[in-house]
């Protein structure tokens, strides 16, 4: 039970007035970010990251991760009340959440979604508490080939598990890697893909890509839809909350299943969005009232919200234990670690226990505080959405520009951000996934380093990736993931005959 005592030490770190204040600020900002179109978890955290450069790392990560929790909660508000998913992972919540609001059960839907978000997150945090140290300890034995095979697994699962065209996933990912290669080569010091422009030497920071792809791209998309907000008003009565809470235990099976789906999808980089859809689909198939789904079934809110939060939270496990983020937002947080001078990866648990356990403790407290804040302040946050788009849109563009500029104090970055905005808009409309692009951009350099180190060890022999049980197993799993669509089709055929 070393973990428990370490966790309590973490609580002691978090429970300072300054950190608690940052936590509250983070959650409120996060909910606002989640509610506003065009600002989401990933780019919200990216924009605010430069403001935390001067803070101690532990306080900074507490604030930023709380923004993330807040954004996860905030997405549900707009889905239920306005039928506009504030975040991609809350799309599935609109299917039943909005019909419930139309029937005058908005309070019930919101309570159910917030509570299940909380349960999903709690489940994932408990898992992180006990599993992450083990994974980290295990990963201490990793050498470059093992790390590369884990990166390979990450990227192969994207291709195999993705919904759309595998070729498009591959293209988006390789574009990310190519962008990551711009600038100085870490090992030989030669300039790559700069084409003689000295400004390009710095490379393309993934924060700029995140702000452009998700921020500007989203604004362009919402503009196209012409945005007419027509929301249901909502106030959550304490009585409704209690009544809903009484109802919830009946759906424990759905919750548990969604937690497991969420955790699985979060650790393997499926992410919160597919997790929520998958959980909704399975709940619909398994439920007795499956045919009532889509017409305001409370289970249809519980399932996607639980899974989305479980996935969003457990995406931090591989980030903490291995230094491999499970989602774009986790990738941004990882970028933060690097900027604050911390080396993410298994050693973090040994070298900076205060930081790691402070973060884990803040996950417990942050989600609890988040639940209380959203339950009490829904009308306030819903009011934000009533601010007309023609005020919100330019302000968000300005905020994005500032966010992009402050990363390196470079004007070129603002231009790059606009370019990424257009790319994000086009890619989203053509179903090129953005998450693999961002992850490849973040992990590109490190994946390349581990690949080159492995090649140096083996003198260019690819068989090093199968040289022992561990690395061979991970590489094998990666290949299975890569060809999963074909394998599952084959299996289905075998079973069918």
């Amino acid at each position, binding site marked *: 039970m070393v973990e428990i005592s370490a966790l309590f030490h973490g609580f002691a770190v978090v429970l300072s007035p300054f950190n608690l204040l940052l936590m509250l600020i983070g959650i409120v900002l996060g909910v606002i970010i989640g509610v506003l179109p065009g600002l989401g978890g990933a780019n919200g955290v990216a924009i605010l990251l430069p403001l935390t450069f001067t803070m101690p790392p532990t306080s900074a990560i507490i604030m930023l991760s709380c923004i993330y929790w807040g954004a996860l909660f905030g997405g549900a508000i707009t889905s239920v009340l306005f039928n506009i998913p504030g975040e991609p992972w809350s799309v599935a919540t609109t299917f039943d959440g909005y019909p419930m609001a139309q029937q005058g059960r908005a309070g019930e839907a919101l309570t159910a979604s917030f509570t299940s978000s909380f349960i999903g997150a709690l489940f994932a945090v408990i898992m992180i508490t006990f599993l992450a140290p083990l994974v980290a300890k295990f990963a201490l034995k990793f050498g470059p080939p093992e790390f590369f095979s884990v990166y390979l697994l990450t990227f192969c699962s994207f291709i195999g598990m993705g919904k759309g065209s595998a*070729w498009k996933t591959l*293209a988006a990912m390789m574009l990310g890697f190519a962008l990551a290669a711009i600038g100085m080569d870490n090992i030989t010091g030669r300039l790559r893909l700069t084409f003689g422009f000295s400004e390009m030497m710095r490379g393309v920071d993934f924060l700029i890509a995140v702000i452009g792809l998700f921020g500007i791209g989203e604004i362009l998309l919402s503009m196209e839809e012409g945005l007419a907000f027509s929301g249901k008003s909502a106030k959550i009565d304490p009585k409704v909350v209690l009544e809903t809470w009484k109802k919830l235990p009946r759906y424990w099976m759905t919750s548990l299943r969604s937690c497991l789906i969420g955790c699985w999808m979060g650790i393997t980089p499926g992410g919160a969005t597919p997790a929520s859809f998958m959980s909704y689909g399975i709940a619909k198939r398994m439920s007795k009232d499956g045919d009532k789904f889509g017409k305001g079934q409370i289970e249809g809110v519980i399932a996607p919200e639980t899974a989305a939060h479980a996935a969003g939270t457990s995406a931090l496990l591989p980030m903490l234990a291995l230094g491999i983020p499970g989602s774009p937002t986790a990738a941004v947080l990882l970028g933060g670690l690097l900027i604050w001078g911390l080396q993410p990866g298994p050693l973090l648990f040994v070298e900076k226990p205060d930081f790691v356990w402070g973060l884990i403790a803040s996950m417990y407290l942050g989600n609890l505080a988040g639940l209380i804040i959203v339950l009490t302040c829904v009308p306030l946050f819903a009011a934000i959405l009533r601010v007309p788009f023609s005020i919100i849109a330019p302000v968000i563009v300005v905020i994005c*520009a*500032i966010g992009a500029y402050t990363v390196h104090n470079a004007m070129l970055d603002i231009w790059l951000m606009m370019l990424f905005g257009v790319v994000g808009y086009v890619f989203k409309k053509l179903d090129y996934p953005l998450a693999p692009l961002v992850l490849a951009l973040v992990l590109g350099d490190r994946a390349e380093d581990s690949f080159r180190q492995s090649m140096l060890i083996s003198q260019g022999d690819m068989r090093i990736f199968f040289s022992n049980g561990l690395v061979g197993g991970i590489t094998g799993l990666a290949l299975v993931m890569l060809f999963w669509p074909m394998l599952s089709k084959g299996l289905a055929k075998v079973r069918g005959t």
Partner: protein
Amino acid sequence: MDEQESAAGDGGISTRTMEIVVALVLLAVSALVVIDSYRLGSKWGDDGPQSGYFPFYIGLLLGIASVATLARVFLKQSRRGEKLAAPGPEPQFVGWGQLKLVLSVLLPAIVYVLGVQLFGMYVASAVYIAIFMRWLGHYSWVKSVSIAVGVTATIFVLFEIWFKVPLFKGAYDALAWLGY
């Protein structure tokens, strides 16, 4: 009125066209990556893999993926030709009306970034927000300007004074008299 009708009508860029354009652009990017990696040396040097070793394969894979996407677009087209059962309208990437709305945000944003380059973050932001509200939101000048100045002033206090993060002042700094 004509414009609104065309927004609802069929006019626009088809998804197919856009798919082809994007795949070709990606193909061009992959060619750039491959050529540059080849220039740097994509083979095995005296001291291990050369600088272009890894990016070379990245570029290659990007090229393969774009060609595959292109091939799929054309295959789909020929299949559609065979099956005349479901002709339907060509799936649309964006209608002209929608495109106009999108450009009405994108073009001012680009002008805004140019403004930042010339006159600095604060001046450009205030002007941008005010004009955006006036043109697209049809607010009165008084309301537009007051909100614009309010937002920009808040940002100024937040960044320059509280967090001490200086923002871009532009080639012609109009706010130099503030001393920041």
